[in-house]
């Protein structure tokens, strides 16, 4: 069917894959033991806002839902737009499992209302205990895979750390095998 779709020029919007996210808390333990990286307690979901009343309604419902959930769990919530027109819902909670649950709430709310294709990625902050090395784990919805992104000042990446993280994670998480898809996210609003 893929051939026919290409022939007829009707590529379908790719749906998001939300399942692999729940493997993250387990992998975090491996990451701490293997690479000395701990969750910083921050995460963000990035999506492309669509136009129209459908998305506006979904968006306001989402804000309400999140406000409630955040209040219950005692975590923090912020919304930012970046210079490329993508929206980031930034969540903060010291407990990684609660963070994943909140991120999943954002995902599933968007997906249920048909906006799954708008999801770009979600980002989880990790850092060395002494506050030195910083490494983010990026989840690609369309691939259902994670990849490490270690930004350094001056739009540089610490490739060595990233590859070390990949080696550490091994089979605990589905890591994106295609290195060209480990794209940079400069100015992520996640510590």
């Amino acid at each position: 069917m893929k051939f026919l779709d290409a022939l007829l020029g009707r590529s379908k919007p790719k749906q998001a894959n939300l399942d692999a996210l729940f493997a993250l808390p387990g992998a975090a333990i491996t990451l701490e033991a293997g690479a000395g990286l701990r969750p910083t307690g921050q995460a963000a979901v990035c999506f492309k806002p669509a136009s129209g009343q459908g998305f506006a309604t979904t968006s306001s419902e989402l804000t309400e839902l999140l406000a409630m959930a955040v209040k219950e769990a005692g975590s923090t919530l912020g919304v930012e737009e970046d210079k490329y027109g993508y929206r980031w819902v930034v969540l903060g909670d010291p407990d990684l499992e609660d963070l994943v649950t909140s991120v999943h709430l954002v995902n599933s709310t968007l997906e249920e209302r048909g906006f799954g294709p708008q999801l770009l990625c979600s980002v989880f902050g990790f850092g060395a205990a002494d506050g030195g090395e910083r490494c983010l784990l990026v989840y690609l919805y369309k691939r259902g895979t994670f990849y490490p992104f270690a930004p350094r000042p001056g739009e540089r990446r610490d490739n060595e750390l990233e590859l070390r993280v990949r080696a550490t994670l091994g089979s605990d998480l589905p890591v994106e095998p295609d290195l060209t898809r480990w794209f940079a996210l400069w100015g992520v609003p996640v510590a």
Partner: protein
Amino acid sequence: MARSRFPTDVGLSSRMLFTMFLLGLLYVVFVAVLIVVVKNVVLVVLIALGFLFFQYFFSDRIALFAMRGQVVTPQQAPELHEMVDRLCALADMPKPRVAIAESDIPNAFATGRNPKVAVVCATTGIMRKLSKPELEAVLAHELSHVAHRDVAVMTIASFLGLLAGFVVRMAIYGGMYGGFGGGRDDDDDRSTGAVILLVVLASAIVYGLSFLLTRALSRYRELSADRSGAILIGRPSLLASALTKVSGDMARIPTRDLRAAEPLNAFFFAPALAPGFSLSSLFATHPSLERRLEQLARIEGELGRRA
């Protein structure tokens, strides 16, 4: 199960399929006529296949070279790269190479026979003219061309048309030389002349029809790319505003530049036509602006439905 807000445009798909069917039918008939009339088509077909091969495998370099596009690294054009990065992650496709062409014509094109060797190129003109979100919409349109493998489809679709045109030319030259080459007996000459006439006639008809059909196919594929691009960025009106800006500008550009760019029209975002050059819509490689805007408005409507 997740659902999409966008139903497939059945009308567009079936019109495209019908056009392809007609093209295929035309070619089958043409080849049959050739085989019946000329006993030795092998040479012509070999040469034509050579053309096809060359165009198919070097299309990316031909187009880039003709537009003087330079492939740029993420360091040279960080913003353009980042936009393409994110669009590819949204659409789940491999990232094509990114190129910039030094040209004031506000345009963009995609080339390459498959997504792995594709190049997406924007002119400096379009990057100056459009706002960042609009440029992103244009890139989404071009990435849809890549995802739909439009270069491969159009190369193959236009191939037999080219072959027919080639046969017409060959036959005309052949006929001219044949006129001087006496020495054979009259009967043979007359039947050869009839065969050549028949081949020229058939080729001319095939050329004319395939020209119209490939143009129609090209228009449908533009509409498809508009549709997929608009759905990808989730804001059809951005693509619409980019289109109006670029099309409005096309008319005000000096003629000579535009002529230089015309052979590449099939891969362009908006066709570069000289001002006052009014082809009937039948010959156009791109649908009219009104038609494209109307489709985008309809997609905007689909999006607007409440959740």
